[in-house]
């Protein structure tokens, strides 16, 4: 797809290339009209990242599967509410997926359990490294994460992959709330610019 398209900027930092993302928008629009074949294709494209991010947050495979199913059905059910002018289809779906994973973790995780999970998530960089497969997108993300300061990277991965609130992140990293807010935001700005360039 021509990168100078007027709306290409919308897609610039999306993980798939602009062609892929545009296809997904089209697919989702068809899904909204009840096209089940389009939904199958959409499933094949997005179930991996949906399940992957939920699994990363929740860890437990069977709960992750449940939440992934709930998310994918919600995509089917609410596809007509997708508004391409507000962002791409992949982002819409992943926002639902992450949100649902967080809702689940916050609603079910008892304090003790929580402590245990926090203890497990102390090597965010390695976690990222282990998830990245040979794919170019993942490679790009890994490289951009590598360009952050350590505390930016840890703040972002603990929040997003670890499912921790920024207050919990502050506690884990033993820094102030203000510092975490700023580091997450600065890190995301740097990630955005890095992903846009590559």
């Amino acid at each position, binding site marked *: 797809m021509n990168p100078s398209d007027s709306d290409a900027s919308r897609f610039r930092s999306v993980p798939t290339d602009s062609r892929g993302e545009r296809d997904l928008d089209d697919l989702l629009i068809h899904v909204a009209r009840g096209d089940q074949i389009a939904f199958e294709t959409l499933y094949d494209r997005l179930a991996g990242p949906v399940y*992957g991010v939920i699994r990363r947050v929740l860890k437990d495979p069977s709960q992750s*599967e449940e939440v992934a199913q709930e998310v994918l*059905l919600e995509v089917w059910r609410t596809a007509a509410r997708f508004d391409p002018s507000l962002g791409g289809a992949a982002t819409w779906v992943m926002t639902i997926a992450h949100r649902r994973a967080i809702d689940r973790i916050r609603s079910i995780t008892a304090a003790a359990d929580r402590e245990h999970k926090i203890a497990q998530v102390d090597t965010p960089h390695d976690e990222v490294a282990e998830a990245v497969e040979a794919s170019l997108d993942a490679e790009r993300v890994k490289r951009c994460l590598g360009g952050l300061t350590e505390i930016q990277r840890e703040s972002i991965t603990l929040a997003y992959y670890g499912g921790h609130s920024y207050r919990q992140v502050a506690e884990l990293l033993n820094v102030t709330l203000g510092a975490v807010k700023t580091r997450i935001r600065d890190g995301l700005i740097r990630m955005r610019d890095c992903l846009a360039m590559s």
Partner: protein
Amino acid sequence: MRLFRRDLHSLSGAYALDALEAGAESERFARHLNRCPSCASEVREFREVATALAFAATTAPPPELRDRVLAAAALTRQLPPDVTSRARSHRARGRARARVPWLPWLSGVVATAAVVVAVLFGFAQAHTEQELNQARARNQAIALVLSAPQAKLLTHATTEGGIATVVLAADRHELVVTTNGLPALPAGKVYQLWLMGTTKTVSAGLLPAATSGQTTPVLASGVVQGDRLGLTIEPAPGTTHPTTTPILALPLPV
């Protein structure tokens, strides 16, 4: 404590990563987003970064999830477009979405959704009091299958494309079939369902004409052990025995 606007603005990153705890702060930031287009656009960009993080975590889900999701979708009514709030903020829509107490773990809940679908289909087609009563009776029978505690959900693609979704209530010896995305047939041809047993094959009725690719639920009774659900293309108005190769032969675990 009241946050200054600058402090609020710095929450955009945490908000985009769902890292604000539910409550006052999160709500205040969400309100702020409505008044601050630059914050909203920043959140949008950060969500794209988050999407890249999600893709980097791609993990193949268990293969059976695919069938379950597709089958459940076939039985789940979609929401219409939200025409009144199109112009509203992304934030408002996001929140509304997150609150919808929807769907399923397959057991039971899908059945509930399917009942809604079945009932709406039936009633939409009823034009007279008598038709309405027939629709009610039919839907009641379907509802019994769908809500049977041991109901099993089966789904299978046909050799001609499209998917058949079956809810089997083994204890009632009944099943309900819907299909989605089957190819349209030329005039004079129909899709016919069969219960194909080890010793005999009986017709289970015709598939109704599809609406937007989907057929209304058909109820079949008298399912016995060893039966498979068959689907063939036959000359209208149907035949007493299959005359063509089945495009679907789904084993029924009774």
